[in-house]
């Protein structure tokens, strides 16, 4: 799921791409943003910040029991397509 900050800052190249990843295999540790630099070899030319949460933690985010960082708002669902 892609998240965005306010329109006034999102256009800046230095503003990291914000991603919330729901992963059943990750360690449950709440909302812990991790920053990653550009990886040109992998085709990623901007810095990114990823919050990886378990499905249970995502439920809490939806119920406002866990809070995302200031300014994060849903932008686009990047769920994997269903397998054919």
């Amino acid at each position: 799921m892609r998240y965005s900050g306010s329109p006034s800052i999102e256009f800046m190249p230095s503003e990291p791409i914000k991603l919330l990843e729901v992963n059943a295999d990750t360690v449950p540790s709440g909302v812990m943003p991790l920053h990653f630099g550009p990886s040109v070899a992998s085709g990623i030319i901007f810095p990114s910040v990823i919050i990886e949460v378990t499905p249970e933690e995502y439920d809490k985010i939806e119920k406002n029991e866990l809070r995302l960082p200031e300014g994060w708002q849903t932008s686009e669902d990047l769920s994997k397509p269903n397998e054919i």
Partner: protein
Amino acid sequence: MPDAAAWAKGYARQAEADFALFQRLQRLLPPVNTCHQLMFLQMACEKLVKAHLCGQGTDPKSLQSSHAFIAGTLPVVLRAHAIEMTFEPRKARRILQGAKLLAQEIEVLAPAVNRAGQRPDNCEYPWTDDADLLHIPLEWSFTPVNLLEAPAGRSILKLIQGAIANLL
């Protein structure tokens, strides 16, 4: 005279600052050199394990003269934190296998650790290989980058950050 608990807290506070700087460096454009980013990750991990060891009763003085504690102790620290976070053992096992490999690679980032000359690659100083070719950290492709970008990498970073926070 500061006791072991004070040393543990001191190492943990410094580890937190090093990890925060490692993270801040990731955000910068144009990108910061990989060797400089990893230097702060190595420093954060070294202080995390020293904080843990002080907390376990190791004499702080015995920790001051070596950088070679990460490979052996970081996996232990992260496993303990994973248990504390009630991370399902089956899932934790896969992540911790990655953490063990990452810990070995992070340890050799320190120039003083070279595994009897087998791993002269490091984050700070130029070195020569067996063919007498000169390499510099600025141009080196560091293994930890690939490990951190792998699926388990994010969980390992979360465990490192969480373990540091636990010791504060």
